[in-house]
C-alpha cells in the first residue's frame, strides 16, 4: 500500500482538523506561543492558538511520550507494617494527534522508539506512542543552528512522521498545504479530515527543501570516534562546558532517566525523571567512585553515545540536527562545530 500519496489541504484544513479531531475525542497537541518568542507543544482545541511562524518548539517532541517526570508507582506503609504498592495506571487513554511537530523531532522518535522498545518494552512509553499520530510541518527556514542535513535528515525529511505537511508558499497559496501521507496512521488522519483535504492534482510536487549545507560527514565522525576515545581533543573541547543539562534536556533524542522515590513519613511515589549524562552525579556510584569524574569525560560520553555507541547498537545515530543544544548552551558551545572539527580531524 502506497503511503506516500500526496493530498492537498484547503485553506481552513487546520481549523477543521482541530475541530474534527477534538470532537472525535482526540487530544490535539500543537505548537502554541506562550511567552513571546517561545513556542511549545500544548493541547489545543482551536487552530487559532496554533503558532504559525517559528523555527522549532523550545522543548522537543519526546516529552509527549517520555515526560520530564512521571510517577511509576505509589507506596504506603500500612499500620500493620506491610507496604502497600500501587502501580500508577497507564497514562493517556486518549488518542493523541500531534499537529505540527518539525520533521527533525519526528525523526527523533525513531531513536526514542529504539530505546524504549528494545530489550525492555516500556509499556508507559508504548502506550502513549501507539496512540499518537505525528503530523509534521516541513521546515521552510531552518535556523542558523540547524544541521539536520549533516546527520542524514532534511528540512523536508519524512522519517518518523505519519503525515508531512508542506506549506505551498507564495501569496496566492491562500493557506493551502500539501499533505504527504507516510503511514497508515497518516492515512487514517487524512480520512478523518474529510473534504478539507483531497488528493493532490497529478503532477503537484512538494516544494523543494530549503538549502542547508552539510557541515560534516557522520561516517567520518564515527571513524574518528572509533579511535579517538583517548584523544586530548576532548579535554580541550570540553573546557568551556559548565556541565548543565540544558543540551540534554532539550535534545529530542536524549532519553536517559533517573528513578527516584519521593516519600513522606509513611507513603511516597517512585518517579522517573529526565537525567543527563553531563551531570557529575550521573555516573556517581554509591561507593563514591565516579567512572566519569571529569567534565570532559562526560562531554565525550554524550558525543560518543550519539555518534558511535548508539549507531553501533541500533544502526542509526542519535542526533537529528535540530540545533536545540546549540541554542541552549550557556557557554555558546556548538555540537555542530565540535563534529565539524572531528570530521576535519578524521579527514586530516
Amino acid at each position, binding site marked *: 500500500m502506497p503511503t506516500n500519496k500526496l493530498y492537498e489541504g484547503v485553506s481552513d484544513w487546520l481549523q477543521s482538523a482541530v475541530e474534527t479531531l477534538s470532537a472525535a475525542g482526540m487530544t490535539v497537541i500543537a505548537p502554541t506561543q506562550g511567552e513571546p518568542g517561545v513556542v511549545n507543544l500544548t493541547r489545543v482545541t482551536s487552530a487559532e492558538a496554533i503558532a504559525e511562524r517559528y523555527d522549532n518548539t523550545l522543548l522537543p517532541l519526546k516529552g509527549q511520550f517520555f515526560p520530564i517526570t512521571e510517577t511509576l508507582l505509589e507506596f504506603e506503609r500500612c499500620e500493620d507494617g506491610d507496604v502497600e504498592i500501587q502501580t500508577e495506571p497507564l497514562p493517556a487513554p486518549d488518542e493523541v494527534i500531534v499537529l505540527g511537530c518539525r520533521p527533525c523531532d519526528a525523526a527523533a522518535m525513531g531513536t526514542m522508539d529504539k530505546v524504549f522498545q528494545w530489550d525492555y518494552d516500556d509499556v508507559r512509553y508504548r502506550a502513549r506512542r501507539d496512540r499518537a499520530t505525528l503530523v509534521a510541518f516541513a521546515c521552510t527556514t531552518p535556523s542558523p543552528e540547524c544541521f539536520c542535513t549533516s546527520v542524514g535528515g532534511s528540512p523536508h525529511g519524512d522519517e518518523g512522521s505519519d503525515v508531512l505537511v508542506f506549506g505551498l508558499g507564495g501569496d496566492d497559496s491562500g493557506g493551502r498545504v500539501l499533505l504527504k501521507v507516510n503511514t497508515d496512521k497518516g492515512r487514517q488522519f487524512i480520512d478523518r479530515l474529510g473534504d478539507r483535504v483531497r488528493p493532490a492534482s497529478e503532477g503537484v510536487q512538494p516544494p523543494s527543501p530549503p538549502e542547508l549545507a552539510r557541515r560534516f560527514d557522520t561516517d567520518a565522525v564515527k571513524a574518528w570516534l572509533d579511535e579517538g576515545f583517548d584523544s586530548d581533543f576532548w579535554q580541550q573541547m570540553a573546557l568551556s562546558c559548565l556541565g548543565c543539562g540544558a543540551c540534554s534536556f532539550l535534545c529530542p533524542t536524549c532519553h536517559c532517566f533517573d528513578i527516584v522515590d519521593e*516519600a*513522606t*513519613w*509513611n507513603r511516597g511515589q517512585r518517579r522517573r525523571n529526565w537525567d543527563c549524562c553531563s551531570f557529575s552525579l550521573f555516573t556517581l556510584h554509591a561507593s*563514591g567512585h565516579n567512572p566519569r569524574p571529569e567534565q570532559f569525560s562526560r562531554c565525550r560520553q554524550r558525543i560518543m553515545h550519539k555518534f558511535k555507541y548508539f549507531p553501533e547498537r541500533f544502526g542509526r545515530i542519535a542526533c537529528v540536527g535540530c540545533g536545540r543544544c546549540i541554542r541552549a548552551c550557556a557557554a555558546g558551545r556548538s555540537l555542530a562545530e565540535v563534529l565539524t572539527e572531528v570530521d576535519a580531524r578524521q579527514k586530516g
Partner: protein
Amino acid sequence: MINLTIDNQQIEAEEGKTLLAAATLAGIDIPTLCYHPAVPSAGACRICVVEITGGGQPGLVPACAYPVQEGLEIQTESERVVASRRMTLALMLARSPGATIIQEMAQEYGAEPVPMDKGDDDCIMCGLCVRVCQDVIGQSAVCFEGRGHERKITTPYDKQSEVCLGCGACAFICPTGAIDPADYCPHPLETIPNDFNCGLDTRTPIHIPFPQAVPNKPLIDRENCIHFITGGCEACKQICPADAIDFDMTDEYVTEKVGAIVVATGYELFNPDVYAEYGYGRYPDVVTSIEFERMVSASGPTTGELVRPSTGKPPKTVVFLQCIGSRREQGGLPYCSKICCMYTAKHAILYKHKVHDGQAFVFYMDVRSGGKNYEQFVRRVIKEQMATYLRGRVAKIFPSDGKLIVRGADTLSGTQVEIAAEMVVLAPAMVPAAGIRNLAQTLRIGYDEHGFLLEAHPKLRPVETNTAGVFLAGACHSPKDIPDSVAQASAAASKVLGLISHQTLTREPTIGIVDEETCNACFECEGACAYGAIGPKELKDRKGEVTAVVAYINEGLCQGCGACAVTCRSKSIEVQGYRDDQLFAAINATGR
C-alpha cells in the same frame, strides 16, 4: 684599683671613679645638689666638698668631681668641710629662701640665713638642667646666660627654643623645682594625670602603674614619652644602671593555649557628672568615693592627708551621698551597687580619724548592710556619732561663700535640710569595666543590658558561662564586695581545677561534625559560631601533602547550637543528635 682612706676607712676604688662614688660604695654619705648620676659632674654647688687631709694637696675638693687618687686621705665631715657646707647652704638660702630642699639641708647643717642680701629665685644654678639637656637629651635647649651673679638659666637668646623636645627632663632633674617647662617649651609636655589616683595628681611617662603592681616595674607610656614623640631624649636609657630600657620593646600579643579562662575585669564607677545638680566636675570639692579613698590613702596623692581640693585645707564638714546612679530607673541604673553603704560607713570612720573635729553626714535611701558583721559596723558609725545619717535624697548642691550648700530632704523628719559642706563625696553606681562588651563578644559569652556578664545559670551554675571553659569572678558579673568577689573567684578557680585536672574532657555529644568530603572551606560557619570553635584543618594525603583545607570543629568548644550547620550551604555540617536525617524524619512525621 686605688687605695685611699675616707673618714679613716680604708677603701678600694676603681681608677677613674670619683670620691663620691667611692664613698657611696663604702656606705659613706656625702650630700649633693648639683650631682646626678645621669649627667656629668660639674662640681658647681660645692655642697659635696670633702677635705683632703693627706696624700695630696690639702684642701677642700668636690667629691662628685674629684677622682680617687692613690693614698688620698679624705675627711667628709671635718670641721672645715661642715663649715664650708654650712656657708654654701647659707648662701643658697640667701638666694633661694623658698627652695624646700635648701631649707631642709640648711636645717640639717645648722646654716643660718646670714644677714645678707636675699633673693627669691628658687634656682640655685646647679646647672643640672643644662647638663641633662645637653648631655642626656642631646638638645641644649636650656643654657646659662650671663656671668657671675647675673648668671641665669634660660633658653638661647631668651627665645622659645626650637630644639626643646618638651621632655621635661630639666624640670624633673631640678632639685629645687624651679623649672616650669611650660615657661619656655614650644610644646610643653601635657601633665599626665595619674589614673590610679583618679587624676588627682600627675605622673611621668615612665611610671609604675600603681603601688602594688605586679611586677612592680616601671613602664614607658609611649603616647607621652618624649622619645616616642620626637625620637630624641633617651634620658632613661642613659641613666638606667641596669641597662633595662629597651625602646624596641613593643606591646605584643601573647598567644597561650589555655584550658580555661576566668574573667575578672572588675568594675568602674558610673560617671556622676550626668547629674548636674551635684556639680561633679564643676565644684572641685565634690568628689567621688574612689577619689576620697585615694585622698585618705597613705599612698595617695596627698600621702594620706585629707584636704579640700579647692583650698588644700582639711574639710570640716563632709557630706556623703549614696546611690548616685544606683537604684534609679530613670536616668540611672536600676540595680543596687551593693558596696556603697559599707564603704561609706568606712569612709565616715576614716574621715573622723583624719579630721577629729570634722562632721560627717550621710544621705541614704536605705542602708543595706547584709553581710557578716556589716550591720554592726554601720550601727557603730551611727551610734558613735561618726556620721549623721539622713534618709533622703539631695536635690541640689551649690557653692556659697567657699562652701557647698547641700540641700536635701530628711524624709524621716519630713524636713528640708541644708548643710554647708566643705566636701561632698558621691557614691556612684558600679558599672562593668569599659570594653567588657568587646571582651564578651570575643569570648562569646553573654552580657546583660548593663554589660554585666551572664552566668550560665543564676542558681546552679553561677560562676560558669555558657561558653565551656570560661568562668566569671567578681564585679564583671554583678556588683560585689570583696568577700563576695573572693568567694566567686575561689569558686571559679575550683571549677577550673575540676576542669583541667582530668586528662580528658567529658562533654555532651551534641556537637557539630564536618563532612570533610563536601566542605567547601568557605568558612562562613566560622562567622556563625558563637564559640570560635571552628577553624581550618588541613587534609593530607598519604605522602603528607596538603590536599585540601576544610573546616574543623573543636569538640571542646562546640556547644552544639547548630548555627554553623544552617550557614553551611552544602550541608556539610551535622549536629550530632540533631542530624539532618533525624530532623528530616521528624518533619516528615509531622505530615503523618
